[in-house]
Structure formats: C-alpha cells, structure tokens
C-alpha cells in the first residue's frame, strides 16, 4: 500500500508543469524513451546509451577507469574543503597543515582522505593503463583516446607533484628543490622553465603560490576537459573494449 501511494505521488509530481519543464518527457519505460533520457541530459549525454553486457561483467579489472574518476571526484571535494583552512603563504601554510591535523574537527580525516585518494589515484591510473595496454585497448579506432589517457596520466602526476609542496615541511621543500633541479638539467629550456615554475631561483613564497594555483585551478581544469574528451571518445569509438570482441576482430584479421 505504502509503495503504491508513493508511486501515485511520484506520478502526480511527474504531471506537474515544473517537472515537465525540466525533464520534458514521460517515464523511461521503452528503449526509445530510455535513450532519450540519456541523450537529453547534459551530465549523461557523453556516456553511451547502450553498453554490451560483457563489458559489465565483474572481473578483477572491473571499472578501473571509473575508479580513477571517482577518486578524482573525492579529491575535488576534499580539496575544496581543505582550501577553506589553508593559506598558501610562508610560514602560514605549515601552521595550517598542523592545524588541520590537531585543531580542526575532522581535519585529519579530510587531509588523509585527500592524500590517500591521491596516492590511490596514481595507482589506479597506472593499473587502468596496464589493463588497456595488455588488453590491446589502445588499438584503432581507440588510439587517440590512448593519447588523451597519456595526457591524463601526466596531469595526474603533475597534480601529485604540485600538491607535494603545499604542506611546506622539510620533505616538501627538498622534494621540490630536487625535482625542479631535475627540470633544470634539460638543455637550453631547463633553467628558464625552473625559474618560471618557481617564480624565482629557489623554492620560496612565489613557488608555493604558483604550485598552489597550478594544483587548485589550472591542472584540475585541464583534467576535467581531458576527462570529458576521454569519456566522449569511449562512446564515439564504439564503447568499452571487450575481450571476446577483441579476439573476434583479431580472428577476422588473420583469416
């Protein structure tokens, strides 16, 4: 009884003009209306309307790309919350990091969630890439999406590296000193690139601020754009690779 009255209430809600003005269609009961529901939604339209049931089978390597994406979502949410207590200034940055550990309620939880999710994301990205590589998922027509994926790998690593400096402790300082000196070993461009990245000749206030802006604004924006292209290309390149299909295609080529 309760469920049917709930369904009735939902039906009445669907009949209202407000609901119709937002969703513009009835319940998704047929394949056509289900497809339209995906097509007509900004957040879903980059995703495929149909997937092969084989690509939904649970395996050890199931949803590695999605795991990476959801770790990124976790990092964005925890990162925005951490920004509310963090000043990218010397020496306030180190004190804020300590405050998050000892003073702010649940600060330890959020900071560790951000840090561990970041490390897990690097692992997930590599695992995803290994999986795609050994499954041959980089082959035509998916070769461009592999290149986009390599771009996402680089963005992930740069995000990790820029985030490394922000606690402003000894580990951060020397890691960035050593890392930017590796950059300056590059012929001709090395020293200017290091100077621009640090905003000076040594790891100081300018470097902290630049790494903060890269970490919180520039690199996440690049990541979001590349993730959008990556997801859209999955659909355009014929959905996720499936082991069986791959073997069929291979067999056909050999014949």
């Amino acid at each position, binding site marked *: 009884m309760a469920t049917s009255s709930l369904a009735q209430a939902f039906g009445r809600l669907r009949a209202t003009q407000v609901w119709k003005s937002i969703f513009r269609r009835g319940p998704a009961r047929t394949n056509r209306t289900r497809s339209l529901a995906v097509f007509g939604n900004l957040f879903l339209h980059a995703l495929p309307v149909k997937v092969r049931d084989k690509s939904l089978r649970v395996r050890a390597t199931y949803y590695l790309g999605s795991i990476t994406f959801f770790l990124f979502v976790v990092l964005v949410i925890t990162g925005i919350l951490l920004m509310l207590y963090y000043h990218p200034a010397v020496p306030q940055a180190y004190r804020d990091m300590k405050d998050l550990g000892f003073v702010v309620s649940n600060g330890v939880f959020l900071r560790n969630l951000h840090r561990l999710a970041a490390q897990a994301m690097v692992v997930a990205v590599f695992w995803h890439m290994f999986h795609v590589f050994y499954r041959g998922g980089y082959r035509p027509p998916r070769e461009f999406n592999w290149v986009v994926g390599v771009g996402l790998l680089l963005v992930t690593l740069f995000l990790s590296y820029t985030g490394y400096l922000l606690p402003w402790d000894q580990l951060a300082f*020397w890691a960035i*000193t*050593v890392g930017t*000196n*590796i950059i300056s070993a590059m012929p001709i461009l090395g020293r200017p690139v290091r*100077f*621009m990245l640090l*905003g*000076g*000749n*040594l790891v*100081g*206030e*300018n470097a902290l601020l630049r790494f903060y802006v890269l970490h919180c604004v520039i690199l996440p924006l690049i990541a979001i754009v590349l993730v959008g292209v990556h997801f859209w290309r999955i659909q355009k390149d014929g959905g996720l690779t499936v082991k069986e299909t791959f073997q069929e295609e291979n067999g056909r080529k050999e014949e």
Partner: protein
Amino acid sequence: MSEPEKPSPGGDANRRDFFNEVASVALGIAGLGAAVVTYRFLSPNVLFEPSPTFRAGNPDLFPVNSMTYLQDQQVYIVRTKEGFYAVSAVCTHLGCITQWKPEADQIACPCHGSKFRPDGTKIEGPAPRPLPHFAITLTAEGELMVDKLEVVKPSQILKV
C-alpha cells in the same frame, strides 16, 4: 563559367579567402603578443631572495686551517695557510645542502651520497661537477666579501 575550386597563388583570391587570411594573420599576431606579454608577466622583476653578494666578516674570525659553514648563505669559508677561498655548499647533483664532516675530512651530501674534498673536488657520488668556488675579496673596511654570482678557478686564493 564555373569558378575555380582554389584561387591561384597569383592573387585572384575571392573576398572570403582574403578576409579569412587577414583574420588568421591578425589572430596570430594577437596570440603571439598575448604569449609574450604573459611570459613577461610570469617572470618576476623583483625577487625577495637573499642577496648573492654578502659580507662574511673580519678575516680574524676564521682561524688558519679552518672550514666555516655559513648557513644563511650556504657557503663554506675555507682558510688555509695560503689564504681564503669560498666553496658552495649546494650539491651540484640536485641542489641539496651538503655537510662538512671534519672527522672524515669530507663534504658529504645527505640526499644521494656525493662526497667532496674540502677544496670542492669530487671524491664520489652522482654529482657531475666539483663544488664551485666563489669570488672572495676584501672590502675597504677589511671585511671578507663573497660574490656567489662570480665563479672563480679553484687556484684563485685570497691572500691576507
């Protein structure tokens, strides 16, 4: 008469192609200018970093056959019987700060294990070059003056 598919390079381009070209060139110039202006903006003109030239104090502060580490400047002031020289304390490998180990008569880097002699020459480790010597002079007041921007030959020693 049918129009040619592509305008010949000689110049009978149609109006659309002409404006496309003008617009592309204008956008190119504007983009190049924006890149240059942004590059200039991103290079700071004033740096709030320690001065590369500094006074190390009176020569009498340094006993003969001594090695003194100046932490703020990251430089060793070495005094031998012959005179003074200044050796960088920044490892030539990846920029870590080295440490003077008097018991081993060595300068050692904690990051990747490079080792140097007190005169900066390399003993071992991943460091590609010896530690550089900086120009050291006496001011009119008789104080030692080190210029970290001027690298000198190790044979150059300030006699006092």
